[in-house]
């Protein structure tokens, strides 16, 4: 009982709420799709160009989409002051963050995996052979995005101009994730494919550092 069970209960609530309306998922998928398609008009997607620019573009699209779709996770809790209800009933406030960041990671991962076939077709990039590795790097990268994004969503929810503020705060902070994830993805899509262990290790370090920071300072983010 405690952190794990509270997180599980709250995670259930987050997932149930989102899958009931699906508004966030649908909007995010369409948004990423739009970026990927629009960008394909700006250069000639030959084999070399696609393999060189494609992964970077894909991760840029994920980052932009995330900075928009992470906004509601704390704004929703302001409507009926349900955040106070959570703070009152949950022993460890970290459970609130854990549940939200895991849910956000799942939503991000879902949209990314939905985008993968589209990307593969539009840019003529073969992805099936390295699918399991791609899922790994998408998971680690999305986890990093989700940890930082959920924490900063709690910050921007308490400020003005929050729709612009969250991307402003989040995108520079996620530079390491962008660089490392792109590198690993490029390596996986080359032929022969290479697994950049340094990149994967780096993403794990990023995730651990920010998860620890969130664990240490999370309760102050929720304070009144």
């Amino acid at each position, binding site marked *: 009982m405690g952190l794990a069970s509270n997180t599980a209960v709250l995670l259930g*609530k987050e997932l*149930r709420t989102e899958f009931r309306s699906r508004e966030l998922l649908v909007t995010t998928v369409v948004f990423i799709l739009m970026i990927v398609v629009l960008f394909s008009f700006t250069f000639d997607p030959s084999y070399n160009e696609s393999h060189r620019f494609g992964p970077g573009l894909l991760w840029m699209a994920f980052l932009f989409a995330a900075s928009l779709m992470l906004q509601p996770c704390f704004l929703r809790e302001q409507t009926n002051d349900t955040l106070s209800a959570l*703070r*009152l*009933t949950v022993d460890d406030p970290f459970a609130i963050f854990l549940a939200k960041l895991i849910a956000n990671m799942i939503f991000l991962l879902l949209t990314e995996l939905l985008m993968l076939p589209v990307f593969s077709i539009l840019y003529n990039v073969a992805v099936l052979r390295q699918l399991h590795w791609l899922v790994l790097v998408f998971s680690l990268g999305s986890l990093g995005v989700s940890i930082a994004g959920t924490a900063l969503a709690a910050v921007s929810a308490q400020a003005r101009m929050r729709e612009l503020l969250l991307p402003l705060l989040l995108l520079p902070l996620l530079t390491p994730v962008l660089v490392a994830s792109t590198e690993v993805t490029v390596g996986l899509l080359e032929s022969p494919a290479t697994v950049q262990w340094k990149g994967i290790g780096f993403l794990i370090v990023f995730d651990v550092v920010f998860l620890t920071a969130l664990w240490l300072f999370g309760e102050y983010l929720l304070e009144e």
Partner: protein
Amino acid sequence: MTLQTAGASGLRFDKIDKRYGGIYALRQVSLEIELGECVALAGRNGSGKTTLLRVAAKLVRPSAGAFHFTGVAKQRPSTGYVGHASMVYDELTAEENLILFARLQNVDKPESRVESLLNATGLLDRRDSLVRTFSRGMRQRMALSRALLAEPTVLFLDEPATGLDTVGVNWLANTLRSLRHAGCTILMSLHGESEISSLATRAIRLESGCVAADTRAGAPMNSIFALSNG
């Protein structure tokens, strides 16, 4: 309704300050509330009633001073809080909301507890409706149900009768009466004299964040509520 009186306790506010920039929402508030007292808080809008309740509920961190639970039990007592907002999720049903909060608080047999509360508040037939479809009065009843889920021994209520019709107010008065008899400590802010205020064993008036009058110090009950509308 059973009550874990072994966990009941009193409240102590020790020179509480709450500052928002240069504005003092609470200024050097010191109060001692005994175990089992039912205290009514009166005062104009902006006098600090909500802030005081939120400090007690540990939602707001005071700028200075401290709040403690006093009494027999060493561990933190089970508390319930009803605020201005309903504090329930619009996108979930009444039952889903209460089950969620019951599970988070490790309530025993959550399903039957939720069912009995929904029954008591007259929301049983709307258990599968989304809270988004509820009226103001129904949301208030949801808020009260949520606060009572874990059988609290200390209750903080911020204008609990708001939005309730006569039937609702009667139910609230009866519920508070039986909680008081069972030894629950209640601190509630009220807008004026009513059936609910008559349950109070003590009344305190706040003005500009300070304690202006206290029936324990001899002030008459009706003076506490006079001029408290504003």
